[in-house]
């Protein structure tokens, strides 16, 4: 009896093994090349549509794309880089936050030189993506990635609150005008207080400074034009911090830095619950469109950030981003190029649903606009969104091009700004100290 049992068990084991092998074999289609695409965006905010569209279109050519999301933070980027270094599982990937990461990855041989492919297909990238975007994407003259999106920064405002207070939606406004408006929009006390402005200072001070100071100083506002030192004590930067400090600590028209940190206030919970009329950045547009998670019925509009004074050059800080590269260790580099080309010139339109705006001039702008406003045209002000977010016309776009020791300088900036916002230093004092400390890194 026992012997039979053992025999049957062995048979079952062997059988299951054979079957497992068989089914594995059946699933694998010999002629299909599978590409692994790594990006930092949740699949439902666009990438899934991209993958579906590509797989439909390239079914006959035998290429399939599978999506892998990594979180775009320190750990997430480390995970991506470890996978790139070990050589497997990544064919095409996106880098975020300007060129810093692309440059480092190119240096570490984690990104393929795209020039041969561009030549082979007779593509002139400048014609498709614009000269600035391509110039900013080159590392030592070589193109290791293609820029796919353009993100123009702006404030987001609760237009309904502006209308109720009888304040016209501003087009250009100075720091003083902005401060007065923020004050007018502030009402109530305690937990129910509605603030005119929310600066999102938990995130980091560097970002706030960047948004405002680059309006006047351009994308490289942090560095002295000669590039050998910082200019963190520049009068514009001082004025900017004075403005932030005044709204937080003098007028009370913005939550103070301490309140922001200790209560873990976020742009989402301040703006989308109607507790702040203006927020410092438009990257939460993804959440503004997500009515399921953040139900609200007010209208959101895009407005440019205020400037120190009127006149002179006024820039709009923009980031050419979502830089797509090919892993040099990929076994399917040709297929990866097929995908990259398709994505940059066409597929990126599907990302508009998550609020990412494609850069290439080959894109169907109506499709982008259509996707962007799908189901949310009643809660987003269409005209201001087109002007300040989607269309790339009539703006004096500027971008950051110098990144020397940027993480270290940003840490210094955050610490000194924190000291200013908690009243330990005056803006001028704090920024002068920041300059002294940051310059140490550039020596």
């Amino acid at each position: 009896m026992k012997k039979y049992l053992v025999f049957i068990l062995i048979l079952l084991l062997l059988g299951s093994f054979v079957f497992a092998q068989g089914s594995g074999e059946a699933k694998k289609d010999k002629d299909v090349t599978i590409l692994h695409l790594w990006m930092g965006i949740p699949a439902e905010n666009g990438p899934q549509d991209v993958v579906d569209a590509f797989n439909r279109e390239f079914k006959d050519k035998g290429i399939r794309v599978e999506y892998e999301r990594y979180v775009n933070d320190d750990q997430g980027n480390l995970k991506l880089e470890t996978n790139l270094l070990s050589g497997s599982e990544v064919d095409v990937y996106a880098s975020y936050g300007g060129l810093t990461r692309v440059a480092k990855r190119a240096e570490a041989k984690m990104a393929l030189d795209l020039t041969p492919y561009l030549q082979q297909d007779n593509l002139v990238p400048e014609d498709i993506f614009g000269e600035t975007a391509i110039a900013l994407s080159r590392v030592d003259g070589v193109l290791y990635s293609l820029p796919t999106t353009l993100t123009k920064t702006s404030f987001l405002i609760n237009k309904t609150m502006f209308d109720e207070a009888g304040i016209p939606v501003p087009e250009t406004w100075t720091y003083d005008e902005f401060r007065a408006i923020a004050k007018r929009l502030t009402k109530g006390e305690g937990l129910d207080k509605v603030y005119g402005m929310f600066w999102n200072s938990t995130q980091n001070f560097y970002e706030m400074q960047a948004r405002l100071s680059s309006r006047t100083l351009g994308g490289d506002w942090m560095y002295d034009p000669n590039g050998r030192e910082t200019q963190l004590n520049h009068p514009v930067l001082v004025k900017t911090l004075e403005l932030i400090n005044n709204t937080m600590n003098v007028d009370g028209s913005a939550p103070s830095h301490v309140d922001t940190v200790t209560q873990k206030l976020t742009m989402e919970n301040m703006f989308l619950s109607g507790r702040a009329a203006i927020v410092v950045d438009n990257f939460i547009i993804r959440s503004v469109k997500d009515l399921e998670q953040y139900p609200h019925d007010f209208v959101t509009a895009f407005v440019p950030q205020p400037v120190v004074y009127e006149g002179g050059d006024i820039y709009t800080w923009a980031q050419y981003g979502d830089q797509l590269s090919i892993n040099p260790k990929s076994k399917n580099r040709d297929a990866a190029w097929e995908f990259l080309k398709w994505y940059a010139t066409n597929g990126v339109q599907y990302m508009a649903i998550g609020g990412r705006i494609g850069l290439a001039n080959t894109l169907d702008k109506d499709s982008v606009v259509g996707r962007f406003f799908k189901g949310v045209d009643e809660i987003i002000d269409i005209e201001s969104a087109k002007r300040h977010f989607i269309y790339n016309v009539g703006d004096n776009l500027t971008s950051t091009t110098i990144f020397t020791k940027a993480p270290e300088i940003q840490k210094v900036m955050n610490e000194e700004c924190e000291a200013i916002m908690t009243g330990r230093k005056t803006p001028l004092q704090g920024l002068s100290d920041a300059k002294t400390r940051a310059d140490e890194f550039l020596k």
Partner: protein
Amino acid sequence: MVFSKQLRKDLTGYAFILPNMLGVLLFFILPIIFSLVISFTDWDFTWGIGNWNWVRLENYFQIWKDQWFVRSFINTVVLSIASVTFIILFAIVFATIIDAQCYGSIAIRLAMFMPKISNIVAVSIIWVMMYSPWGPVTQLLKTLGITNPPKFLGSYTWALPAIIFMMIWSGIGYAVMIYSAALQGLPAEVYEAAKIDGAGPIRCFFTLTIHFLSPTTFFLIVTTLISMFQLFAPIQLMTKGGPGSSTSVMVYYIYTSAFSFYKMGYASAMSWILFLLLFLVTLFQWNYQKRWVNY
């Protein structure tokens, strides 16, 4: 080939622990050696393995000129010494009281032990809420008549004490548990003799209990101090080292250097400094124990 009986026995033994040893070797011993090697280089993670310059001991000297490191070092020492002192003091008193005269002592011990088995992430988030301006700690202080209570995690002066307080709260249960176990084994006859000689409970506590518990105290000081030196999660979750660098601790700064600045060589050098520090402190305690620990 003929193996001697002993060798064959040894080899079988090693074969059994081989899977485990491989893990230890790959994920423990090798990284340790690797970190020591790169601590003598200026390696930036993104340069790829092998692309580094040898800088000898430069990292080890540079560290002391780095004010972020010095600040983190001081904070670590303050945090460790303060929390260990209070944990030991409170734990020994609580354990004695619970042991001597307390109804439901098991329930109390269990309740105190809860933070130890709770997830540190959850604990940290709860404490952020506790310390927030609308949280219970601040509200309690207001009810007690303090009109302008500190902003705890947002304050340069109070952020570190707030974290120390939380660490004392979360560490005390474990220490009480260990002390309670030790108290069960104390010789009753000595206490009886003391009582006959006229010693009251307080006298007994100071001359007998503390004396008998000294090996436990020694064990707790060594282990708690080591774990406090390695504190990371609450800092990352609650303050990110801020405001300024008032709550930055060594492990947090090592993490920042390695994964924000990508300076792997520099970060490894700091890790080795941390190791040496812990090693020296433990060695010192080990030698010094002869003076006050009684077995």
